[in-house]
């Protein structure tokens, strides 16, 4: 009977491949038994078929009873955290995308206001979509692969697991690390893909004529792996801040170690001459900007600028690490 096949198909398609054959056989014999119970030796009418299938109920519900696995993407345990993080990430990503879109508009000078407006709206949509997707994917992966461990830990908890109530100043609000992650992600992406926008903007009568890039796209392409490592270091640093939720020795130690690694890599990257736009000075001169400094040795200035950048970064990292050190000692317990 075709109705039976259709009913069984509706159940089976919602069940994992491996169990299908077996469950199909089982449901088929069940339906036959039910038909026999209602009609005996008589040949069942189509009304009998319908009644039996109605008694068995909605195929989706029957399949759900067979599947005792979780059928949700993010479970109730993590749902609140998920919403909180989305609420922080989405505005950040949208803000960042808008900034990038404006820089993009500035660089390419779109023809009409409409197309510029379109660019911004597009950036907001794709930024929001990206942010939403990544947060969701991370939480879904956590649900599938890590949640079980969390449950185990929950069963074996002891009183000593109760966290100390941190001093108010020792608490790290989630906004802080998340902002850190979002902005450095945006910065890394910007640095890798849009580095042609970093440079001297050459305006003439308030119209942008050209951008003289500070970096060489070629050179930057070669250091991408190191930029990624620096980003991973930052992820570790902000990640441990996010999940610990308070300052303590471990958080500060991890922060300082990742800082040192990133610092060394940053200096190595910036010291590498190939990442700089080698013809920056001549382009500057061609654009008529360098004229006023013609008498001075421009190469030396250029050297000084790149060196200065290295000093600024070293200085930044040292300040950051000293702050960590202070917090680590202050809020040790």
């Amino acid at each position, binding site marked *: 009977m075709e109705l039976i096949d259709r009913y069984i198909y509706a159940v089976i398609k919602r069940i994992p491949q491996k169990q299908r054959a077996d469950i199909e056989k089982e449901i088929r014999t*069940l339906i036959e*038994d039910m038909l026999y*119970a209602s009609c005996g030796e008589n040949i069942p009418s189509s009304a009998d078929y319908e009644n039996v299938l109605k008694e068995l109920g909605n195929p989706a519900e029957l399949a759900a009873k067979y599947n*005792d696995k979780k059928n949700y993407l993010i479970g109730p345990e993590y749902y609140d955290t998920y919403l909180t993080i989305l609420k922080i990430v989405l505005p950040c990503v949208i803000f960042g995308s808008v900034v990038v879109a404006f820089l993009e508009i500035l660089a390419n000078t779109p023809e009409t206001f409409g197309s510029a407006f379109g660019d911004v709206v597009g950036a907001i949509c794709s930024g929001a979509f990206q942010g939403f997707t990544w947060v969701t994917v991370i939480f879904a992966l956590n649900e599938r692969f890590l949640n079980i461990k969390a449950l185990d830990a929950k069963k074996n908890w002891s009183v000593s697991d109760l966290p100390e109530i941190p001093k108010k100043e020792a608490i790290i609000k989630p906004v802080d690390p998340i902002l850190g992650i979002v902005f450095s992600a945006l910065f890394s992406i910007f640095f890798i893909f849009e580095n042609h926008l970093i440079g001297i903007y050459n305006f003439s009568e308030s119209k942008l004529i050209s951008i003289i890039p500070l970096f060489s796209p070629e050179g930057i392409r070669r250091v991408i792996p190191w930029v990624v490592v620096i980003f991973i270091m930052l992820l570790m640093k902000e990640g441990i801040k996010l999940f610990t939720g308070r300052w303590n020795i471990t958080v500060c130690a991890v922060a300082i170690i990742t800082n040192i690694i990133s610092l060394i890599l940053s200096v190595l990257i910036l010291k590498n001459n190939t990442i700089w736009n080698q013809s920056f000075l001549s382009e500057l001169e061609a654009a008529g900007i360098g004229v006023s400094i013609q008498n001075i040795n421009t190469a030396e200035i250029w050297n000084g600028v790149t060196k200065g950048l290295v000093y600024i970064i070293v200085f930044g990292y040292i300040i950051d690490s000293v702050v960590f050190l202070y917090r680590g000692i202050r809020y040790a317990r």
Partner: protein
Amino acid sequence: MKKEMISERMFGLNDIEEIVRSYISELRRGTLILCVLSRLDEPKYGYSLVQELEEKGIPIDAGTLYPLLRRLEKQNLLSSIWELTDSRPRRYYFLSDTGKAVYSRLCAEWHSMVSSMNKMIS
């Protein structure tokens, strides 16, 4: 005015009806496994179990019982075997050794629970 009060009371009654029904089904659900285990000291196929439980005043949907049997088998409380009866293949379920042990423990628990409950509500 009077009409309103009556309808409100009727609504209240329906509410109680609804709540009672949902708690009864919760109570039944808790005892279901004990019912099933108690019937399977000899091999039975799913639908015969449905009929037997209904006769004994414990109606259960086949759509609930069949997945339950599978789950109990997965937990090693039941074993199963396909057999031909009346020229039809059917899966027969029966208690495994683990199932027997679990059943006797659950029975003991049930008896003590019933006597405590009786003391409380009688």
